[in-house]
C-alpha cells in the first residue's frame, strides 16, 4: 500500500531504514533471546525461589528460608558422597584429553584405510550413553561378565566392580571415558589438520623430534583444540547422569550418586518430590558450574584480546 512518490516533499526515510544497521542484528537475535530468557534464565531464578521453600510439587509452597541449605551443607551425607563423586568425575574424566590426543596422533598418518580406523575409533561417541552404560554393565557383571572372564585367564579373582561401593564410581567413569576419549580424539584430529607443516619442517631442521617436537611445536598449535576438549569434558563430567542411572541407579546404597543424580532423586524420582531440597541441590550445582563457566569465558576473553 505504498503511496505514490510525493514530488513536493523530500522522501522521508522510515525509522527502520535509518537505523537498519543497528536494529537488524537485534531483530535476528530477538527470538533466540526470548527463548533463552524464558527457558534458561527464568527457570534459574525459579529454582532459587523454590529452594527456599518446602514443596511437594502439588500443594502449597511453604517458606522455610535457608533451612534446605542448612541441611544440605550441614552434614547431609548423601550430599557429601555426591560432591566427592563429582570431584572424582571431574579429575578422572580429564584423562579423556591425553588419551584422545594420543589416539589422534596415532591415527594422524596417511595409511591405506586410515579413514576406516578413524571412524571405528569415533564409533563409541555415536552410541547413546544408555547403550554405553548397558554394554559396560554387562562387561562388569560379577559372574557372566567379560571382565571377570579375562581376569580369570590371568588368574585374578572375580570382582564385582559395580557392586562394591569403593570401586563402583570408578567403573562408571571408565565407561564414560570410552565415548569421551573418542570425542577428544576427533577434536584433536581436526586440530592436527591445521598444524602448519612449515613449522614442523623448520623444527625438524633444527633437530627437534619426539617429545620435544610434540611439546614445543605441535601442542602449542593445538591449544584451541585443547581448550574445547577441556570445556566439553568438564561439562560432560558435571552432567554425568545417564550412565549412573543406567549402570547402578545411584547404588550400591547410594555410593555412586553425583549431584545431578541426587537432585533428580530428591525432586523427580519415584520416592522424591521434595522440590525445595532438589532445587537447593540444583543451586549448588549451578554455582559449581558457574565457577567453570566464568573461568572459560574469562580465558576466552583473554585469548581474544591477545589475538588482536
Amino acid at each position, binding site marked *: 500500500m505504498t503511496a505514490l512518490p510525493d514530488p513536493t516533499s523530500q522522501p522521508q526515510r522510515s525509522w527502520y531504514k535509518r537505523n537498519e544497521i543497528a536494529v537488524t542484528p537485534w531483530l535476528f537475535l530477538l527470538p533466540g533471546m526470548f527463548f533463552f530468557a524464558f527457558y534458561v534464565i527464568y527457570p534459574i531464578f525459579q529454582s532459587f525461589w523454590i529452594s527456599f521453600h518446602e514443596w511437594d510439587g502439588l500443594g502449597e509452597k511453604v517458606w522455610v528460608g535457608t533451612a534446605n541449605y542448612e541441611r544440605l551443607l550441614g552434614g547431609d551425607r548423601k550430599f557429601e558422597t555426591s560432591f566427592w563423586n563429582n570431584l572424582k568425575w571431574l579429575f578422572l574424566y580429564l584423562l579423556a584429553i591425553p588419551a584422545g590426543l594420543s589416539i589422534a596422533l596415532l591415527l594422524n598418518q596417511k595409511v591405506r584405510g586410515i579413514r576406516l580406523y578413524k571412524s571405528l575409533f569415533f564409533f563409541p561417541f555415536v552410541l547413546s550413553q544408555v547403550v554405553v552404560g548397558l554394554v559396560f554393565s554387562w562387561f562388569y557383571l560379577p559372574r557372566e561378565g567379560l571382565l571377570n572372564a579375562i581376569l580369570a585367564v590371568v588368574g585374578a579373582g572375580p570382582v564385582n566392580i559395580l557392586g562394591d561401593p569403593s570401586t563402583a564410581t570408578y567403573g562408571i567413569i571408565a565407561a564414560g571415558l570410552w565415548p569421551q576419549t573418542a570425542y577428544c580424539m576427533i577434536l584433536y584430529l581436526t586440530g592436527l589438520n591445521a598444524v602448519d607443516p612449515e613449522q614442523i619442517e623448520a623444527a625438524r631442521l633444527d633437530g627437534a623430534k619426539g617429545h620435544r617436537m610434540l611439546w614445543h611445536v605441535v601442542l602449542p598449535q593445538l591449544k584451541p583444540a585443547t581448550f574445547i576438549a577441556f570445556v566439553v569434558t568438564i561439562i560432560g563430567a558435571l552432567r554425568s547422569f545417564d550412565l549412573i542411572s543406567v549402570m547402578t541407579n545411584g547404588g550400591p*546404597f547410594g555410593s555412586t550418586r553425583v549431584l545431578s543424580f541426587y537432585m533428580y532423586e530428591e525432586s523427580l*524420582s*519415584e520416592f522424591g518430590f521434595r522440590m525445595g531440597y532438589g532445587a537447593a541441590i540444583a543451586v549448588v550445582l549451578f554455582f559449581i558450574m558457574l565457577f567453570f563457566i566464568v573461568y572459560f569465558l574469562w580465558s576466552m576473553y583473554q585469548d581474544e584480546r591477545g589475538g588482536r
Partner: protein
Amino acid sequence: MRSILKASVAALGFAALATGAVADGHGKKLSGDLRIISDMSNPAPRAVMEGLAKEFGEKHPDLNIDLEIVDREAWKTQIRNALTANAPDVVNWYAANRMGPYVNAGLFEDISDMYENGDLPGLDAVKGAMTLDGKQWGVPYTYYQWGMYYREDMFKELGLTEPTTFEEELANCQKIVDSGKKCYAIGTKFLWTAGGWFDYLNMRTNGFDFHMQLARGEVEWTDARVRETFANWRKIIDMGGYIDDHQSYSWQEALKFMTDGEAASYLIGNFAVAPMRDAGLSDDQIDFYQFPLIDASLPQGEDAPTDTFHIPANASNKDNARAFLQFVTSADVQTKINSGDALGQLPVNAASSVDADEFLEQGFAMLSGNAKGGVAQFFDRDFPAEMASVGMEGLQEFMVFPDNLDDILERLEDARQRIYK
C-alpha cells in the same frame, strides 16, 4: 429416525428385562465419555485392562471409552501431571500411604458414599487399605500374597520340609548351604526386595502392630526391638544364606539363580510365579510356604500389596467413572480378571471365587485364615516415601555390610526425626 426410535425401544425393553437380574446399577445406561489411564502395561495385565474396557463398552454401547495404557514405572511419576492437567476419569494407583500425596493435595475423589450406600458390596475386608483420614479414596482391583516360594524338588533331594519356625528355617538353610547351594535368591539393585525381608522379619520378631508403629514413625530406629530384628536377619547373612552380589541384580535377574537350581527359595510376591513357570519350572518343582514364626506368641502379619483404581478430583465424567469402579469390583468381574490365565492374583471381592491354582489357593487361605496380626501393604507403601527410600538403601547396605548396622540405624533415626513432624 425410525431406526433410532426402534433402537431405543429395544434398549428400554432390554433394560426392563435386565433390571431384575442386575440390581447393582449396571443396568443404568451410560452415555458420553470415559477416559481411563491405566498403568497395567505388562502383557497379562494389559490384556486384562483392554478386556475390561471392551466389556464395559459392550454393556454401555453409547459410552465412548478412551483407554490409554502407560508404562508402569513411568506412571509413578507421570500421575502427577495426569491428575492436575486435563485429568482422565479413572486412573490406577496403589493403596495405603502411597495415596497420601494425592489425597492431601485434593486430587483424588472422595468416594466414601459408595462404600456407605452399598454400591460396592463385598469390599468390607479391603476397605481399610483404601482409607485415609477416615474416608475412602478409591477401589482395589487386585492384591497378592508375599511368601517363601521354594524349589520343591531341591527340598526333597535334601530331605527338607516346609519350616514353620525360624529355627527350622535356619536349620534348613544350613543344610542347603552345606550342600553348596544358596538358600535365598534376591536381587537388591532396585532396593525394594530388601524391604520385603525386613517387613517379614520385623513382623515376626516384634509383631504387626510394632511394625506399623515403626512405619508411622512412632518408634526409634535405634530401639532394641529393631536391633533384634536385624540380629535375626544377620543370622541368615552370616551363614551365607543369600546369593552373592545380590546388589547387582534386579529381582528378575536373581530369579535365574532359583530356576538354575543354585538357590532354593525366594521371598517374593506371587507375581514371580509366572516368570518361574515361563522359565520352565513345573508346578511339581515349585511350592509356597508362609514366612515362619519367630516369636510364636505373635499373630502373623502378612504383606499383601493392593493395586487400585481412583477417580481424579478433576475428572469430567465422574458418574461414568463410578459405574466403572462398581463394574471392576463386582464379584464376577473380580473372579474373571484375577484368574490364573489373567492377572493370576487374588480377587478383592468377598463373593468372588479364587482360581484353582495352587499358589492362589494357598495365598488366599493364608491371608484369610492365617494373617491374624494384620495385612500390611509393603515397606515402600506403608512408610512415607522419603523414609522408604532412605530405609531401603540402609537395608541393602546392611545385607552387604552387616557390620555397618550402628551407623545405618543412626542414619535412619536421623531421617525419622526429620521426616515425621
